[in-house]
């Protein structure tokens, strides 16, 4: 289902001057999450939609927004049972600030859900600084009734971005590999869900072993690897139609595929006769160029957000380490010099960090380094943490964590190393990839 989300400004409100604007510092070390109140959104009218009454949608939208903000680790939504005031449609524009101050809410997110004559809805989102008694942000989202959840995520993104100064990431999805069955005969399926776990569905049947999905920048296509017909190679999956298509006709195994930032190229590895190199493949013209050569294993390529460079791993120096090269394969240069091995690098969409998997001392962890290799920090440590993927705003990293019993799940961690948390999936899970923000 494709949603069209129209973003409109609400009636213009004067921005109130503030001497000390309410702000969440996401780079602070041991910060206290900001207490925030997110009461049920008020029904803008009494009408019903195919997704439920405006009252019901208002309750659910507030829950989605509170869940998003809580998951960031930066906000602490206050238990609605503590609220001393209810929110009707008049209170949305004129909140009872003293009542919210009594429960120590620093910020208030409120709004309305209105059914439109065309069957759609308008979700109006308002954010306030409770102590200053001032509006922080407001925006209206016009969408289909079924799109109410995305409108709620957009509202949460608005609040997050106004209070942190960073762009949001809640209106996004995760594609990953769902796992079940014995380790010797694991069944793996591509699955997709909203970043908060809603709307989960399987994309492939489990008949073929599938690995390492990644979104195209436009998000309507996913590239992944499949063992269909015992020919392990790179495939494309089109989300709208469910169409699956093998990429190119290569003699060797192709794997580790990623899109270029403009969506026109894939980079992936090809193994020929025991040697693995990185290739670039133009999806429209099928033109293929080899970017690395030599006897080492060169794999896990990832473009810089401007498309000018590619980070990858190679064991050419004796063990897996992280290298950077120009997008045409020139200027290859090792950047990781930490202890142990450094593998599966992924360039942040902001360009400021490269996430990677550290193998050493019998443990696997997720780390980050600057694109020149400096400032290395390890964020996690587990039996088998691997496969990092960035949130659209480059502040959160998804990864897979496996244990000795063979179970595996999705986790996320903030680039500060804080807020390590499990992402619920119906079955075991691995190889997560976060989408860009939805259009």
């Amino acid at each position, binding site marked *: 289902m494709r949603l069209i989300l129209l973003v409109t400004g609400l009636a213009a409100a004067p921005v109130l001057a503030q001497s000390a604007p309410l702000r969440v510092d996401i780079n602070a070390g041991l910060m206290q999450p900001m207490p925030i109140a997110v009461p049920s959104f008020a029904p803008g009218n009494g009408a019903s939609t195919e997704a439920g009454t405006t009252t019901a949608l208002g309750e659910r939208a507030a829950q989605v927004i509170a869940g998003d903000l809580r998951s960031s680790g930066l906000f602490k939504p206050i238990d609605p049972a503590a609220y001393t005031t209810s929110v009707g449609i008049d209170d949305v524009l004129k909140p009872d600030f003293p009542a919210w101050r009594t429960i120590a809410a620093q910020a208030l997110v409120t709004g309305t859900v209105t059914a439109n004559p065309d069957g759609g809805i308008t979700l109006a989102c308002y954010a306030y600084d409770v102590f200053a008694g001032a509006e922080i942000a407001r925006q209206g989202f016009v969408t289909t009734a079924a799109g109410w959840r995305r409108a709620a995520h957009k509202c949460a993104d608005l609040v997050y971005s106004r209070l942190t100064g960073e762009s949001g990431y809640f209106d996004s999805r995760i594609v990953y590999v769902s796992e079940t069955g*014995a380790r010797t005969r694991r069944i*793996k399926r591509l699955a997709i869900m909203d970043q908060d776990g809603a709307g989960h569905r399987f994309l492939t049947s489990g008949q073929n072993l599938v690995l390492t999905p990644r979104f195209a920048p436009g998000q309507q296509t996913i590239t992944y690897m499949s063992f269909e017909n015992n020919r392990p190679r790179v495939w494309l999956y089109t989300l709208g139609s469910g169409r699956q298509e093998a990429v190119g006709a290569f003699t060797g*195994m192709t*794997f580790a595929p990623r899109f270029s930032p403009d969506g026109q190229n894939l980079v992936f590895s090809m193994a020929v006769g025991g040697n*693995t190199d990185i290739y670039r493949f133009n999806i429209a013209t099928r033109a293929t160029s080899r970017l690395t050569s030599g006897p080492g294993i060169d*794999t896990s390529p990832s473009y810089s957000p401007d498309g000018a460079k590619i980070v990858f791993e190679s064991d050419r120096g004796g063990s897996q380490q992280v290298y950077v090269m120009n997008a045409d394969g020139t200027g290859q240069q090792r950047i990781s010099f930490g202890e142990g091995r450094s593998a*599966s690098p992924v360039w942040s969409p902001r360009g400021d960090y490269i996430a990677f998997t550290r193998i050493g001392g019998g443990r696997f962890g997720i780390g980050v380094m600057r694109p020149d290799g400096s400032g290395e920090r390890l964020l996690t440590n587990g039996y088998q943490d691997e496969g990092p993927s960035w949130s659209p705003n480059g502040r959160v990293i998804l990864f897979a964590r496996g244990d000795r019993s*063979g179970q595996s799940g999705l986790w996320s961690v903030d680039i500060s190393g804080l807020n390590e948390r499990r992402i619920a999936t119906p079955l075991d899970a*691995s190889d997560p990839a976060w989408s860009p923000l939805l259009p």
Partner: protein
Amino acid sequence: MTRQLPKLPLLALVLIAAACTPKKPPAMMEAPPATARPEAPAPTPTERPATVETGPSSIIPGSQDDLRAQAGSDTVLFGYDSYELDGEARATLTKHAAWLRANPAVRVTLEGHCDERGTREYNLALGDRRANSAKNFLASQGIDVSRLSTISYGKERPAVEGSDEAAHAQNRRAVTMVMSR
């Protein structure tokens, strides 16, 4: 319900058919049921005597079982992050080569596998190296490369469960798999 098939004669037929089929040794590459831990892991070179014979009619010549019986094992093992063939692996593959010469119509796929202690994509490449080590050795023994193909499963298809070094050692392997004709 309009028609009930007679059950007894069918069952009898199945039993007769079963009685006529020579009992095959268990297929070692078949995975155990989803919930069970494997009691019979994939064979290691030392687990079976090289001259296993369960009766002249029980093993189809040129089959996977025949390869296992004649060569002692269809699997060679590797060290951690290694794709070098040690003496034991070369000895086993030498027997595979002899068996392939004796069965000239047979084609095989060399499967490369890894333990779980590597990243997924690196292990796909490492499995490819292991499969090609085995393939290149067979080719050096005079086997026509047109009879030899390779596939890497990385760490996706361990032979045995478990997360200790004993299990990992069993999973770092190349398997000579007879291709169905």
